[in-house]
């Protein structure tokens, strides 16, 4: 091969081919979804995120949760996602129309979080778990996110948003642990994660 144009054109065309298939196709077909209104309940699916939860999505990204937690429920025949109770149906592209960046994930050092809001709706549980993961969930190797919390001196009454921290991480007498705005946002996002709503293209599989 001594002719430059042959090499350049070949290099261009082979790559163009994959660009059309794996970029242009997804761009036009997987990234142009609109929400669906459920005829029975009048719900908009997937539901929009609250402002705080949207903020929490960014905290999720900046903390790198995706490196240990996936957010995808695979079809029957690909792993035991449904059998583990990680969702009532496999997820489809429309589920992610409001996600940017998308947290599909490639690693499960921790469990899948597609529907963590349905499995663990308690805001307090999430705060405790983020603050002292190994105490709340024995055997866990999740790092503590204590840098998202403040240790504050109790002035008068204990504040309503203070979290219950168990030993050995409990604060000294007269102090309380309160979530920062970032922690509040992250937990709002986590409890919002519930994709067990019906979509026309994703019926629940027969039990």
């Amino acid at each position: 091969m001594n002719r430059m144009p042959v090499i350049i054109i070949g290099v261009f065309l082979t790559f163009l081919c994959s660009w059309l298939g794996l970029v242009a196709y997804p761009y036009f077909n997987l990234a142009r979804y609109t929400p669906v209104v459920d005829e029975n309940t009048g719900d908009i699916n997937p539901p929009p995120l609250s402002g705080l939860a949207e903020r929490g999505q960014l905290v999720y990204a900046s903390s790198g949760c995706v490196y240990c937690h996936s957010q995808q429920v695979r079809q029957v025949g690909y792993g035991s996602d449904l059998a583990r109770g990680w969702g009532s149906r496999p997820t489809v592209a429309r589920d992610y129309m409001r996600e940017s960046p998308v947290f599909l994930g490639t690693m499960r050092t921790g469990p899948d979080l597609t529907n963590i809001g349905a499995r663990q709706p308690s805001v307090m549980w999430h705060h405790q778990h983020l603050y002292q993961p190994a105490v709340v969930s024995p055997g866990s190797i999740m790092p503590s996110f204590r840098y998202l919390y403040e240790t504050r001196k109790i002035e008068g009454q204990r504040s309503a948003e203070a979290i219950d921290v168990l030993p050995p991480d409990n604060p000294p007498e007269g102090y309380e642990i309160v979530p920062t705005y970032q922690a509040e946002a992250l937990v709002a996002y986590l409890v919002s994660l519930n994709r067990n709503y019906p979509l026309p293209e994703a019926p629940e599989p027969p039990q």
Partner: protein
Amino acid sequence: MSATLDYPAPVAASRDHPATVTPETEKTQRALIDASTRVPVILFYGSAIFWLLIGSLLALVASFKLNEPSLLNQWGWLTFGRVRPAHLNAVVYGWASAAGIGTSLWLMARLCRTPLRHTKLLIGAAIFWNIGVLLGILGILSGDGRSIEWLEFPNYASFMLFVAFGLIAVWAILMFRFREPGHIYVSQWYLLAAFLWFPWLYSTANILLNFQPIQGGGQGAVNWWYAHNTLGLWFTPIGLASAYYLIPKVLGRPIHSYYLSILGFWSLALFYSWNGMHHLIGGPFPAWLISASVVASVMMFIPVITTAINHHMTVRGNFQALKWSPTLRFTVFGAMCYTLASLQGISMAIPSLNEVTHFTHYTVGHAHLGLYAFFTMIMFGAMYYILPRVVGWEWPSARLIRWHFWLAAIGIGMMVVVLTLGGLLQGLALLDPEITFMASLDYTKPWLFLRSISGLLLTAGHIVFAVSFTLLLLKVGATRNEPTLFMTEQDRQPEPISA
């Protein structure tokens, strides 16, 4: 003897070289070309080695955090979810890409048979590149990371990298424009392709994921199209270009088959670019999209086996040269691991196997087999060959090179084995819904500890290499008239190649 070793007849050029050129003129010409690449090559190599050390440190922090989660957990900027992507980006953009660019510059000048032109463009590119990597790593650690695998750099950093790359691409085109007429060697095809593919790849992915993000459903596809092609169409071509040049060069014999090189090149271009979606098997994507990638992944058998045969047949009968040549030992180790990593990658794309390995540390082991055992080892080999020629000084110590090789080879071997075994146990446990999730995590813990140990070995190797590099730059040690080899000439019985 030493002259042959230093500068064997240029295999690439032999076909069309005018017979009137004497070996002495050729030698002088090559020395001139090598000297012209000095500043940019040392800049790219030096910064690459710096980022290799930083990347190793970040890797150790991330790895030990999985063994002991309370380690350094009071600071947000050192949380696992930031240190891990900081490690990946430091080694992918800071180390591997910069080492690849440095190697490519030198190879291009040699193969175009012309002194390097427009050095200032390249110096500018090196500065932009390093500022970009620095901003990106600091950005990730301070919480600006995007959590898009392989594209975590915030926009202000990726923009700098893109500018740097633009300058390099312009330079590459100019080099080809002014090359000496004649045969275009296989290494040049790969380099030209890599330098055209990567800017396209990088800009498309950054625009659709970071500057004007599309909806999440499409992002997954673009993400893995990018991440897999960075391996397949950026690192792989540069690694193969280096192997295709250095193996015949050190042995002083031509590449086994020109036609196998052609087949290997075009089948790689055609199939590798379609591989990415095998990272999303079972995910929320149309079945045909995933199937296309699975098929393309299996078809990778063609370029991989073709290249493996071509390299093997070139070295065949001369394997004893691995005993004395550092360049060849690193390069052949890398080339063999290319075959291994690719065959493993093909197997992982087969859905029934993927079901076990997906979402586990098995994939992490595979990534290190590709980016370290293949690409990084080939880059080390290239550096051992190129640096003495551009610095004008031989490596000060064969013992340091030997330590570097064994620490790297044993370290990466151990890392791949323990992650593979740990990943298989984790994957089999995840498949069985009767086994609790926590048990799947418990299975990995001892293996993750061994992984940290293997990381210590690799880091030690990198420190040895950095010391060796610094001594070379400072021109420490006795003046040598021939390359630093693992064995002196008297030790070699019988003579590996005829003088």
